[in-house]
């Protein structure tokens, strides 16, 4: 086996200096969020284009958007705040604040998913009747597709959030070394912004 000349680089990263390792991670995550942002942007543009097409113009009535969406929005906004709290907590070496912030974010994430589910159920009636009428299907199913796509990303975010939280309880993070918390926060704020744009679009379109 050839000797590893820079022995301190971990097997999964060629970057020796921990700070530039985090800088690489942050840049990588930013690029990934840029990519996801374009994905959401494209689906919203598609939605708006079809929504504005003359064929759909005022011919059909769709039920008003579920009120519960406002509650979801509130939960998600708060969770952005709590994860920020967690991040400043670890930066200032306040482990309690980190833990409370993380747990609260997870709880709010689940609360968001729960209210979304209730909203989906409340639209089940229109969904069933609309599937029969082809032209109307778009108006109803697109709501499910857009919010569903976002919800999948929330679920995907809860996984690393849970891992980081359990590590926070194991006192693994310090003000100098807390990359995991930082990545989670970046992703979570991103989900928040996507939701706000998505919700606003749905409101205007309705």
């Amino acid at each position, binding site marked *: *086996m*050839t*000797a*590893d*000349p*820079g022995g301190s*680089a971990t*097997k*999964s*990263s*060629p*970057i020796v200096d921990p700070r*530039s390792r985090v*800088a*690489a991670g942050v*840049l*990588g995550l930013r*690029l*990934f969020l*840029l*990519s*996801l942002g*374009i*994905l959401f942007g*494209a*689906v919203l543009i*598609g*939605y708006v*284009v*079809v929504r504005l*097409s003359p*064929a*759909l113009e005022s011919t059909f009535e769709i039920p008003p958007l579920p009120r519960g969406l406002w509650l979801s929005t509130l939960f998600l906004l708060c969770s952005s705040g709590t994860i920020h709290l967690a991040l400043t907590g670890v930066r200032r070496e306040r482990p309690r604040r980190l833990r409370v912030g993380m747990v609260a974010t997870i709880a709010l994430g689940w609360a968001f998913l729960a209210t979304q589910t209730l909203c989906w159920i409340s639209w089940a009636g229109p969904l069933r009747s609309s*599937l029969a009428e*082809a*032209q*109307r*299907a*778009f108006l109803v*199913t*697109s709501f499910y*597709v857009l919010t569903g796509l976002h919800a999948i990303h929330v679920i995907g975010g809860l996984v690393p959030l849970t891992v980081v939280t359990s590590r926070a309880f194991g006192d693994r993070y310090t003000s100098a070394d807390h990359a995991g918390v930082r990545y989670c926060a970046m992703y979570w704020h991103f989900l928040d912004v996507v939701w706000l744009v998505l919700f606003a679009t749905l409101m205007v379109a309705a």
Partner: protein
Amino acid sequence: MTTNEVTTPIESEPARETNYLNATTGIMSWLGTLDHKRIGVMYLVSVLMSFFVAGLFAMVIRIELMWPGETIIDQDTYNQMFTLHGAIMVFLVLIPSVPASLGNFVLPIMLGAKDVAFPRLNLFSYYLWVTGAVMAVAAILFGGVDTGWTFYVPYSTTGVDDRGAMDGVFFLTMAVFVLGFSSIFTGLNFIVTIHRLRPPGMTWFKMPLFLWAIYATGILQVMATPVIGITVLLLAVERTVGIGIFDPSLGGDPILFQHFFWFYSHPAVYIMILPPMGIISELISVHSHKHIFGYRFIAFSSVAIAIFSFLVWGHHMFVSSQSPLLNVVFSAITFSVAIPSAVKVFNWLATLYKGSISLNTPMLYALSFIFLFTIAGLTGLPLAVIATDIHLHDTYFVVAHFHYTMMGGALTGMLGGIHHWWPKITGRMYSEVWGRIACGLVFVGFNVTFFTQFVLGSLGMPRRYHDYSGPGWAQETTDLFHSLHFVSTMGSFIMALGFFLTAGYLIHSLFRGRRAPANPWGGRSLEWQCPSPPPVYNFAEPPHVGDCYDFSVLEWDEQEQGYHWRRDLAHDAGEA
């Protein structure tokens, strides 16, 4: 992996030092590896296997067209053949080809680094590619796909089996989705690597031009691919649930699909061509032993191509009923894209001028690239003129144009790169004589196959037809098309012979090839400073960064059959 067998010394040669190939053995040491070199080799093998499969489909297509009437397959099978050929060549072969295989292998070494920034993500990308490949096979098993690689709606929303079925189209679109993420992660990984792992002394403008090309490609991969991802995802949802976003019978907008598709797929053609262009910049300079001409122009033209390519997708839709104003705008911008491509060609030619050109296999591929890509670009122009495109759209002229770009350009560039870095990757030299013969066969075969198709297309032969006879076809037209198609198919046999020959001598070299020196061609970028094949961590001590196109510091060593640093120079004399 057969490459492991290199480790057993054949004949009576002394066992070699440990390198990335023989440091660990066993299949698991490959499948679970985080080493960018091994991942690059796995990609290379996988991509070439896909190339073989899609090539077989192509031969079926060509044989069907040799004679008028139904020759060997019926029209439905024919539709499936060209769809699978196109989809596999684009999504499984050309998109990952150069960056994921050769790029993975040489990028970190060119930077003097141990690996890419995120080795785990790199392996993950590879397995995403494998998953995509498996799903493509599933698509074939579940009834096949006959929509063309473009998946145009409503072909793709109203299939053989009706909506709700988990059929071939569903699996193939999901394969494209998964492959898209493989591509995004590769691009992201390379961008971060270039940002964070450049060695001290290597500023942006001292990077090898191949890295500029990979960087520009990375931008396209990260920013264009999510659009195809969401498009095929919506298509799959539309097929299964009937949401009505693209399908006109459900109130959707089929033109929207075309916009989305080409918003990705035009940049995607540059994902395919930019990395080979980067290879050509290296090959031209190294094999003519002359400093690259117009470094900054070539570097910036890669970035310019990347940016412009986002603005021209509408040139695929001139006859789609999009507004005439849009047509004019897209046509105008398309012409401007040709400029940076031409800038590269001029700089390559200027590099060759008065160089001491070695006409070895990589150089022959580079010259063949310049010739074929020039034809490709020039024939893009009549397609970008609205008036002529109305005649040429959906004819063999378009087929010939994009084969000149994708095969004459992208694939030729990749073959040049494979030959250039083969000694580095495998530690063996291939037979130069057979290499030149095969390159000649591929070149001749390619032109016979596809130049004929320019003629066919301008005479009006439509693409995607399995027959050109019967009612509606004048007998003279059928006869004329028959002779042209016959010639075209003959050309493809010549080409196939060239490829089999290439596979033959390359595989032969693994066992019997001469041991490669560290620097067989006289290259100056960092990968030529480490042994062939490189050790696991690439460099025992940090390599010497300098002007990577200044060849005056190297001299030929007859005994070693390779180049090394001039003995009369101190090692750092070349550092600028």
